[in-house]
């Protein structure tokens, strides 16, 4: 081990730029691998949880080494199946854009994790404008959907893409305003500072002073990821499968990965900005010393899993919205509420409202 460290030290002295690059790449791999595994098992969790909610069993056949193991092998089987399937490109499709679209849908969902702080001081890039960067990355994700819809050269795909583009752009405004509330309350764009500003106790977390913004952020997050009950972009009953009708094999899988990575991202961001991130829920209570040994990362993951579960729960519970109702909710309900609440938060910060902003 020492020999490797020594080798590394001499290497980083000789080639400082290259050494930094390798270190960053290693960190990216450390973040990406668990994320990809989580995406794979999120699909399994979705089928299993919704299955039990609908009094079914869900996948329970594919296991490991001849055992069923509750169907835990299912995501791997799905992944292998999709990898070895042929990628069919329609004759009239725009070939280059058709292939680029799934990458554009997956890329921003992964790039957004660059500024995410997993624990005190544990972020790939702890930048000043972290919140802005996140907003920019989530807004770029829509290109995958639009380009896929256009490049497929199919009516259904184009309709799905149009619906999705309009929906994502509308809800992005409400989402951005909700984050402006967080930014005003925390007084910083740095994500670690936003978490630190929430420390105190469970009641200091921003879900309470920013309750309307918290709800609007999460609901807009569901709409942004095109998930039920806002999944009109897919709308199986009217436009078959929306923007990805013509996709097959790995290109289809990339859309799938992007969607689930986005869901995990929205859950993690909600946990970070409204639920105190890596802060312990027992902070400021007599129980705090008993849970001091739990690393902050575990709390963050637990909170993220809670919101990820909500995504599945929504899908099993709510019927799909009608399109005009989606637009009405976004423009006429959410945006006015966020604007009013930004004013309230601004006044609370200026007059140093006790408990949260004093």
């Amino acid at each position, binding site marked *: 081990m020492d020999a490797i460290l020594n080798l590394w030290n001499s290497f980083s002295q000789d080639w400082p730029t290259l050494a930094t690059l390798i270190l960053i790449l290693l960190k990216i791999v450390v973040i990406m691998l668990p994320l990809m595994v989580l995406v794979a098992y999120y699909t399994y969790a979705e089928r299993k949880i919704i299955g039990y909610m609908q009094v079914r069993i869900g996948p329970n056949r594919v296991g490991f080494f001849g055992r069923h193991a509750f169907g835990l092998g299912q995501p791997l089987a799905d992944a292998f199946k999709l990898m070895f399937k042929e990628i069919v490109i329609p004759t009239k499709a725009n070939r280059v*854009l058709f292939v680029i679209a799934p990458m554009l849908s997956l890329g921003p969902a992964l790039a957004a994790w660059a500024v995410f702080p997993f624990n005190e001081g544990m972020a790939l890039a702890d930048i*000043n*404008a972290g919140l802005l960067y996140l907003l920019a990355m989530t*807004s770029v994700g829509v290109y995958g959907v*639009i380009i896929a819809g256009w490049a497929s050269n199919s009516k259904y795909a184009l309709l799905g*893409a*149009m619906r999705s*583009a309009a929906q994502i752009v509308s809800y992005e405004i409400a989402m951005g305003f909700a984050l402006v509330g967080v930014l005003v309350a925390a007084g910083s764009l740095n994500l670690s500072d936003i978490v630190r500003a929430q420390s105190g106790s469970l009641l200091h977390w921003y879900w309470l002073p920013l309750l309307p913004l918290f709800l609007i952020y999460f609901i807009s997050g569901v709409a942004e990821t095109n998930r039920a009950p806002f999944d009109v972009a897919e709308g199986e009953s009217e436009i078959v499968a929306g923007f990805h009708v013509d996709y097959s094999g790995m290109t289809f899988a990339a859309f799938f990965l992007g969607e689930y990575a986005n869901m995990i991202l929205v859950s993690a961001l909600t946990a970070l900005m409204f639920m105190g991130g890596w802060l312990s829920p027992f902070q400021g209570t007599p129980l705090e010393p008993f849970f001091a040994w739990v690393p902050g990362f575990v709390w963050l993951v637990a909170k993220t899993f809670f919101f990820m579960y909500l995504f599945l729960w929504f899908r099993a519970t709510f019927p799909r919205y009608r399109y005009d109702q989606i637009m*009405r909710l976004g423009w006429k309900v959410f945006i006015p509420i966020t604007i009013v609440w930004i004013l309230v938060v601004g006044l609370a910060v200026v007059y140093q409202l006790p408990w949260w902003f004093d």
Partner: protein
Amino acid sequence: MSYEKFIFYVFAALLVFSASMVIVRRNPVHSALFLVFAFFNSAVLWMLLEAEFLAITLVLVYVGAVMVLFLFVIMMLDIELAAIRAGFVRYMGVGALIALAMLVELAMVVGPARFGLDKFAKPSPMAANALPNTEAIGEQLYTVYVYPFEIAAVILLVGIVAAIGLTLRRRPEKKTQNISEQVRVKRADRVRLVKMDAEH
């Protein structure tokens, strides 16, 4: 060549390439996508100047919102490519003249007489304890330039209202749902129970 210089030349070359593709490509959707790519590359160049707020805002506003709506409109148009090409030769003379005029103007503005390291000092890297970009811009905007900033915002708002006002027209024959009416509806409005004798 230093590392930063290398990055600058790579992205500057990509920027020039994609910007020229915007005007060369026949298909307007391709042009719009190359414009998006050009925005990304100029964001990288701004990032090299340590103007991270401007760089990210460029991606957020132009790539994330403006160009999405642009593409939205372009994709719905049924564009006749042959019709676009038809007038090319006829208008080429005028076009070339305008291009030449713009080239001369550009050369006069950014020519060696007004541009170069001897005219502008090389930007020095930001001090480690300096105010972050976002805060510095915010402070200037909301103190020194607060009136121009607010007036610009109001003009934009008026523009939005005017655009909506222009497209808004009442069409009495159009049938749409009145959602608040739908929500407010009670059982008594829709169901009427009638007493009647059983039929034989």
